């Protein structure tokens, strides 16, 4: 077993770390306070190639492996969750779905501009009345000769007002039995007639990120924009989560690291009862746990990444990584605030933002409750992976790096 990261991994990690620390960290608190998204972020991530990091060069990407994607997410969320959310939806939930399920023509039309960062991408599954149980979704897609007519409303969609291309799920057969076989996936573009979007205000966390709604009224979507087959949408949606959750888990690792690093710094500065608080046993315990959570969460994420590289199915392993890493990031943030005392309770320090941001990740992309059901069902034998018509391709350096 080899745990070493390659020179490429380390250099890519350093580059993204420098970007996040130098360009984002200095102002992130202000954007978060104002509940606004820094408009420079997406174009800059595009320019640096981050938006196409693990997409093959022949499809406009940078040709790095799936492990690099995790390292990038860790570095981004070390600074702010809103940065990693971009990778979750643009890359994990959308671009990787195209890589997995898209036809060659769809890859050229959608994936290439997304990987180059010329177009931003989002993923719209959740609706006002369907979150954990997406089979209940009500959006419809009615076929009329060579177009589908989409109607419905999507809610809690990251980058709803920023993305050009949105992967939406709607029912082509609202009466299908079982119901999940009636769902189909489509790539819509925000400029299509009948598409309106807006931002949701008043969020607890990810305030520097964009989360919104999408309304579709008689939107005409060409048949060529259907991703996969009719009725295949549910499987596509779930396979997207295998990649989205991976980025969320990797990001949570970064959030734990943020809590740990900030707490260590503070514990070495703050003095009570004649010594630095780091010398108090109860503070040491908190630090020790954070280190343990960081190490364990990171290993779980990297195992999932390794499986992706090898082309092995990783639904369970990714889910357990996401569940553990995000749950521990909430705990780490709580402890980080505690270590900072009253200062941690104010936005003078970053830890209160970490806590507010951590709370989101135990809700989206399968809440922690749903993650527990998944793990239990695998263990009890109630749930088994079935092969998919299209699997996520294994990382093949030749294929990824050649111009094609």
């Amino acid at each position, binding site marked *: 077993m080899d745990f070493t990261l*390659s*020179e*490429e991994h380390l*250099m*890519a990690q350093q*580059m993204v770390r*420098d*970007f996040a620390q130098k360009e984002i960290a200095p102002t992130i608190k202000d954007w978060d306070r104002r509940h606004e998204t820094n408009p420079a972020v997406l174009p800059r991530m595009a320019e*640096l*190639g981050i938006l196409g*990091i693990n997409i093959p*060069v022949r499809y406009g990407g*940078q*040709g*790095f492996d799936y492990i690099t994607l995790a390292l990038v997410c860790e570095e981004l969320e070390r600074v702010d969750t809103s940065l990693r959310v971009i990778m979750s939806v643009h890359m994990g939930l959308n671009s990787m779905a195209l890589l997995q399920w898209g036809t060659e023509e769809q890859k050229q039309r959608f994936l290439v501009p997304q990987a180059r960062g010329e177009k931003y991408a989002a993923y719209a599954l959740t609706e006002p009345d369907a979150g954990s149980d997406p089979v209940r979704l009500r959006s419809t897609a009615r076929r009329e000769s060579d177009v589908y007519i989409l109607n419905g409303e999507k809610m809690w969609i990251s980058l709803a007002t920023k993305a050009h291309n949105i992967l939406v799920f709607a029912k082509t057969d609202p009466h299908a039995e079982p119901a999940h076989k009636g769902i189909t996936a489509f790539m819509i573009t925000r400029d299509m007639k009948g598409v309106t979007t807006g931002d949701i205000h008043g969020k607890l966390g990810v305030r520097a990120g964009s989360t919104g709604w999408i309304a579709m009224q008689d939107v005409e979507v060409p048949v060529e924009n259907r991703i996969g087959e009719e009725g295949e949408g549910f499987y596509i949606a779930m396979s997207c989560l295998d990649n989205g959750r991976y980025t969320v888990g990797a990001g949570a690792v970064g959030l734990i690291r943020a809590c740990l690093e900030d707490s260590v710094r503070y514990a070495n500065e703050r003095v009570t009862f004649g010594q630095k608080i780091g010398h108090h046993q109860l503070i040491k315990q908190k630090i020790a746990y954070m280190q343990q959570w960081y190490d364990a969460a990171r290993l779980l994420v990297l195992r999932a990444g390794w499986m992706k590289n090898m082309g092995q199915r990783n639904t369970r392993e990714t889910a357990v990584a996401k569940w553990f890493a995000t749950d521990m990031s909430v705990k780490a943030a709580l402890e980080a605030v505690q270590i900072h005392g009253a200062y941690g309770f104010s936005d003078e320090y970053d830890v209160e933002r970490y806590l507010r941001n951590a709370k989101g990740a135990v809700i989206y992309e399968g809440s922690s409750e749903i993650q527990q059901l998944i793990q239990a069902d695998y263990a009890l034998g109630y749930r088994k992976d079935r092969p998919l018509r299209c699997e996520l391709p294994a990382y093949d350096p030749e294929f990824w*790096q050649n111009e094609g």
Partner: protein
Amino acid sequence: MHVVVVTKNTPDTAATVTVKGDGTIDWGDSLVVNPWDEYAITEAVLLKEAHSGKATVLTVGTDEHQEALKHGLAIGCDQAIRVWDGALDGCDSLGYAEAVAAAIRKLGDVDLVIFGRELADIATDQHVYQVARKLGWTMLGYVAKIQALDVAARSITVNRLTEYGTQTVRSTLPAVISVVKDINEPKYPTFIGIRKAAKAEIPVWSAADLGLDAAALQPRTQQLRYQELPKREGTVEIIEGATAQEKAAKLIDRLIEEKVL
């Protein structure tokens, strides 16, 4: 057009540096590209792009300095060369300059050599001037902007930052320059560059490859020992007063009393 940027790794500026009992220094264990060289490397890449030329990143040192070379490649330099030889172990700045100059001569077609303004760890820049002297080329230090570079006409025009203001100088090529922060915004490595850098096999040139004999590299100066700076003791005094004006007046009195003013 061929531009060479000379770099090396230096201890992380964030690291704690301590002087040990025997007068040697513990620099901490993390090394980074000499911060001033970030500007030099970026300038080399910008120039080679603007003039469709070639950029080489060069270091004289052990494989501890490999990372600085890889960084240069990742940012866009076309090739990297490391010069090292047992005979260089413990060399002084003159020996270092001898090796750099020899490598540049071996490259042959170099028009411009760029250095960062100084080495961040030992705060010295004499090696830059020594390289220019060894090559017999013009030396332009503290360059804040390259106004014009005309390779065909063999001329370079730069703005130099001096104590008295900005000085504009024109010189013939080839030349050696050292650059300051104002010259550019350092580039990040590109992902494609990172992959190239990771795969690159960097050649190592020995003293023999450069036609240098060990005697020429013998140090003429010797570092005897480092000493910790005496600890500065400071106290804080809060100046009280009803109004800002009153506080300011009291502050001035105190400063005069302390002979600061």
